[in-house]
């Protein structure tokens, strides 16, 4: 398992997979924005209904989390969330590497959040007030406050990075492992007498039909898996299609469903939620509104 591949270098600037994916995500998002945002009408069509639904959902989320007065943060949160989501999901195309599986990306975003928080605080109470805020509620808290301020972006960055990276590491480990197991199993089966794959085939078919008769999905799946195993061991035996890693057929897909799609969505949500919470805390409602 490696970090992002460096395609080429221009002077000191190295163009890596992350750079490419990040640019690609940006282009996709911008094109999408231009496409979805054009030709808005009062009497909306289907496309506009969906766009408006999504946009108003985002506005609702931001207003719920940060308060109504912070609703102008929505475009940034939306951009962050979409970048994170697409940056994670882009790894599933197989062409690009997930942009969020690179610490540079997530740390940049986390630092942007921190800077925004600091900027909000400074805007709220001035530089001195902001610095003074570190020694509150008591002076002893000063080092801890500073540490928490530093830890915040790091934890955010590592959370996102770790989830996506860990997912892809795990998926590839499972892939390699299953491929190894399948060559081992098929090798053993091909060296065994021809009866073994035939028996496997027969058992598989019987289980499959029992599954059909009793309408049980699990029996059908097990049956077809055993049939496939039998067929491929027969093929292996006659040297027709040797070395097919058949065990990698279903399981990694299920894992990918979790590690790529679910984890990608959740991390995008978590990252933007955290940003919303931190920035929202730094931008309290105007005095006239509070109480």
């Amino acid at each position, binding site marked *: 398992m490696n*970090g992002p591949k460096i395609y080429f270098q221009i002077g000191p600037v190295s163009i890596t997979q992350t750079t490419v994916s990040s640019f690609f995500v940006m282009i996709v998002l911008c094109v999408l924005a231009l496409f979805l945002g054009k030709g808005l009408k009062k009497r909306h069509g289907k496309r506009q209904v969906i766009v408006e639904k999504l946009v108003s959902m985002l506005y609702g989320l931001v207003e719920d989390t940060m308060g109504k007065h912070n609703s102008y943060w929505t475009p940034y949160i939306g951009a962050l969330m*979409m970048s994170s989501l697409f940056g994670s999901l882009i790894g599933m195309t197989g062409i690009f590497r997930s942009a969020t599986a690179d610490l540079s990306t997530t740390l940049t975003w986390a630092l942007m959040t921190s800077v925004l928080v600091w900027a909000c605080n400074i805007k709220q109470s001035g530089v001195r007030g902001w610095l003074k805020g570190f020694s509150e509620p008591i002076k002893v808290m000063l080092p801890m406050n500073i540490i928490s301020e530093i830890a915040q972006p790091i934890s955010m960055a590592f959370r996102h990075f770790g989830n996506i990276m860990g997912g892809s590491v795990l998926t590839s480990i499972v892939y390699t492992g299953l491929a190894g197991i399948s060559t081992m199993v098929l090798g053993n089966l091909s060296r065994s007498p021809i009866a073994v794959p035939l028996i496997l085939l027969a058992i598989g078919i019987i289980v499959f039909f029992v599954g059909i008769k009793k309408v049980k999905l699990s029996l059908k799946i097990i049956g077809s898996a055993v049939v496939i195993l039998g067929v491929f061991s027969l093929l292996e035996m006659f040297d027709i299609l040797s070395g097919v890693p058949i065990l990698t057929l279903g399981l990694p897909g299920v894992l990918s469903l979790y590690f790529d799609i679910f984890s990608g969505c959740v991390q995008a949500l978590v990252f933007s939620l955290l940003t919303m919470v931190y920035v929202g805390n730094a931008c309290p409602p105007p005095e006239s509104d509070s109480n």
Partner: protein
Amino acid sequence: MSGFESIVGIDPWTALFTFLNMIITFLILKKFLFVPVKKMIDSRQKEIDDLYSDANDSKEKAEEMLVDYKKKIENYRQEGDEIIKNATTRGEKREQEIISKANAQAEAIISKAHEDVMQEKKKVLNEVKNEISDIAIEIAEKVIEKEIDEEKHKSLVEEFINNIGDEK
């Protein structure tokens, strides 16, 4: 020069590009998607609110007018009732007048007719008296065949008849 970045490493250039991409994405999404869509939603919402408040106003006005008209109609009905009542009493009065007048007239006619009849009766009675007296004289002449003083006779008979008539 191809190679790999370290797995947990930070490349400042990648970070810079990410930062720039993020800014660009943010600006474009904001300019072309979020702001116009939000504006559209808000303006539509405002339009709907306006429509609703207009409708509410109209409804209130209509209800007001309804109450007004109901009141007016009630007034008119009362007026109409009064007019009808007046007319009825007047009509009844007139009716009474007409009837009493007619009664008086009828009474007058009847009394006049009565008088006429009485007069006629008298006349007829006189004629009958005369005739009877004539007949009686004739009969008497024939019976007694003796000329008596016609004048005296006549008065006798008349007296007689008158007595009869009175007794009748």
